[in-house]
């Protein structure tokens, strides 16, 4: 179902006419021909690169680095307040806690890029969890993976319904998914009360519980990390080489190597901490929790889809200027439709991870707070609410910030009231930084 793209046989725009055609007008006019001097964008030269990079930051194209800086500050504050914060046990716990927020944030990024919003992701996640839990238990007793796939297809179908309503009837997505939020909360209550006992459905499948609570073995942790970093490094360096080979500018090798080394260092630190025994008296607990490779896999897949495929390009185009995209021959309907479907599928996956961590699905899942965290994660990371700007990695960084606040404030014994207020301040700070940066760009 990739009919949204124009036929691949589209005649490729051939190389422009030979320069010999230049310089002679029909009326014998003399045409001024100027020599092209391509100014360096992010050039081969290291100092030039740094200068161009600094300019980009001033122009508000700072990327995720400021947010990462904020995350580091938060971590330092919490570590000072409670030495247990960066302990192996809490670190792994934080990653597992943050995973559903990150996935929900990624779900939201699909539609935020379009300039739309999906307020229903929290309860759609709940629906995904309920379907999985029901199907994996008797009387159905489906294998865990089949239950997950069916649940994610179902939540994808829910997203498809929102998409069709938005596209066909031109309803604002805010209202459609607000109705969806209420309707899905009702459906969730209905399903849990019909199939559960005492307002919860327990998850008994050990494989499902392992999704959030299981860990890679120590060796597997190192291997997965090494392969991931190796692939990242190889792809980055290969891409730069291809660009240079094609006569285009690429970041200097030193910068690329610094990036790869930074990623490798982060990976080593992550695996090292996770491989410290964090078990209690009764057992040994080591290794990277499964949610980490799951999230990273989804991140790579989605980033690839957004950055390297026509579909991804068209989402940005529609979010930036739908009319321009339409005139370019982009099908607005199909691309929007698939974005809504992907939001639904990803929400379902987030719900499964969430329920797996809790061991059950309850009828009092707070889908309202979940969706607000999802939007906040995307926006804190740098995704625009107005469409056209956003990346999957924003949801990762923003989700980690939210999980850090949630976890850290719980650890130092502050009540939920403080958590909400601090999250609010961080969200405001993130949007303010973004708005100021954008003003800087407009004035430039």
């Amino acid at each position: 179902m990739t009919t949204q793209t124009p036929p691949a046989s589209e005649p490729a725009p051939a190389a422009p006419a030979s320069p010999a055609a230049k310089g002679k007008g029909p009326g014998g006019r003399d045409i001024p021909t100027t020599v092209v001097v391509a100014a360096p964008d992010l050039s081969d030269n290291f100092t030039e690169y740094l200068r161009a990079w600094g300019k980009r930051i001033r122009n508000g194209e700072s990327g995720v680095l400021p947010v990462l800086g904020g995350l580091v500050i938060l971590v330092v504050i919490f570590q000072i307040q409670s030495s247990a914060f960066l302990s192996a046990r809490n670190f792994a716990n934080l990653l597992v806690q943050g995973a559903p927020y990150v996935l929900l944030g990624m779900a939201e990024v699909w539609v935020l890029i379009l300039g739309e919003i999906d307020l229903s992701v929290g309860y759609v996640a709940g629906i995904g969890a309920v379907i999985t839990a029901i199907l994996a238990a008797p009387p159905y007793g489906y294998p865990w993976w089949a239950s997950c796939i069916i649940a994610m297809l179902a939540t994808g179908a829910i997203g498809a319904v929102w998409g069709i309503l938005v596209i066909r009837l031109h309803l604002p997505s805010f209202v459609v998914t607000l109705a969806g939020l209420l309707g899905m909360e009702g459906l969730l209550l209905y399903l849990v009360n019909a199939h559960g006992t005492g307002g919860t459905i327990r998850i008994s499948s050990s494989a499902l519980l392992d999704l959030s609570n299981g860990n890679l073995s120590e060796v597997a942790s190192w291997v997965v990390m090494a392969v991931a970093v190796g692939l990242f490094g190889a792809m980055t360096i290969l891409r730069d080489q291809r660009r240079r080979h094609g006569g285009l500018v690429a970041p200097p090798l030193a910068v690329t190597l610094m990036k790869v080394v930074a990623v490798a260092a982060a990976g080593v630190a992550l695996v090292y901490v996770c491989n410290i025994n964090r078990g209690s008296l009764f057992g040994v607990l080591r290794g990277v929790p499964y949610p980490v490779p799951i999230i990273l896999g989804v991140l790579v897949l989605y980033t690839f889809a957004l950055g390297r495929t026509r579909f991804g390009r068209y989402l940005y185009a529609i979010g930036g200027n739908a009319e321009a995209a339409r005139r370019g021959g982009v099908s607005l309907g199909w691309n929007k439709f698939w974005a809504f479907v992907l939001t639904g599928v990803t929400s379902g996956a987030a719900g499964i991870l969430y329920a797996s961590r809790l061991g059950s699905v309850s009828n009092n899942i707070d889908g309202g707070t979940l969706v607000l965290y999802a939007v906040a994660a995307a926006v804190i990371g740098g995704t625009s609410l107005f469409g056209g700007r956003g990346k999957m990695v924003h949801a990762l960084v923003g989700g980690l910030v939210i999980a850090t606040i949630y976890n850290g404030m719980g650890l130092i014994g502050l009540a939920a009231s403080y958590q909400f207020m601090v999250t609010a301040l961080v969200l405001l700070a993130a949007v303010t930084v973004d708005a100021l940066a954008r003003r800087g760009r407009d004035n430039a």
Partner: protein
Amino acid sequence: MSITAESGAPTRTEDAGQSLLSLQGISKNFGAVQALDHVDLDIPAGQITALVGDNGAGKSTLIKTISGIWQPTAGSILWKGSPVTVRTPRDADLLGIATVYQDLALCDNLDIVQNMFLGHEKLKARLLDETSMEKIAKQTLADLSVTTVASVRQPVGSLSGGQRQSVAVARAVMREAQLVIMDEPTAALGVSQTAQVIELIQRLGSRGIAVLVISHNLTDVFQVADRLSVLYLGNLASQGPIANYDTQSAVELITTGTVSHPEQHGGNANNHDTGGAEP
């Protein structure tokens, strides 16, 4: 009815060859309103034709008819001598007609390369082939001597009005358009930006691309155009080589549809249609 310049003695520019695009008796009604009334317009290949007229004269309706946004109520369109129907912008695109709209139809959040290839991305193994797209985009801009953009990877939103115009034109050229229609390309631009765009239009002409440019600015028109076509209240009041007109006669044609003293204009007055407004 309008009588075109071609109906008189053939002039120097017309004998170069047949028209690239020729409109014959094009009419367009919106309900009771007749926006175009039997317009016969000729656009020769490789020449810059300026389309002028007062507000409401039908300029926009005319280019929208050519670019496939609206269907003519009556009349036919000849492309390289054979009749064609242009039902959608895509049809126009396939013929080689590209329209650079006043609002430019660019995505501010996408960079120059992404905008130039929007809807026509080059793929390699089903994935975006950024390297070759960037190369082609750079080459096209270089061929058009667009020198002012620092990087083809900067978002279009950060460009000046003239640069945006250049990107929109380069996109048309890159798709091998044979006719580029430009709607008020200099309307919102300052002096130096206007000069930039004028230079760009001249370069299109020098590359053998026909240009139909709508403008209110007669100074620009006389600077850049090879031919002039004047619309007046939905009629083609006059068309012919630019040498047959001066500012005064052009203004008269725009405001009244006729020229009061044709003999003032160097003996070429027979190329004017002097009965534009009244049948």
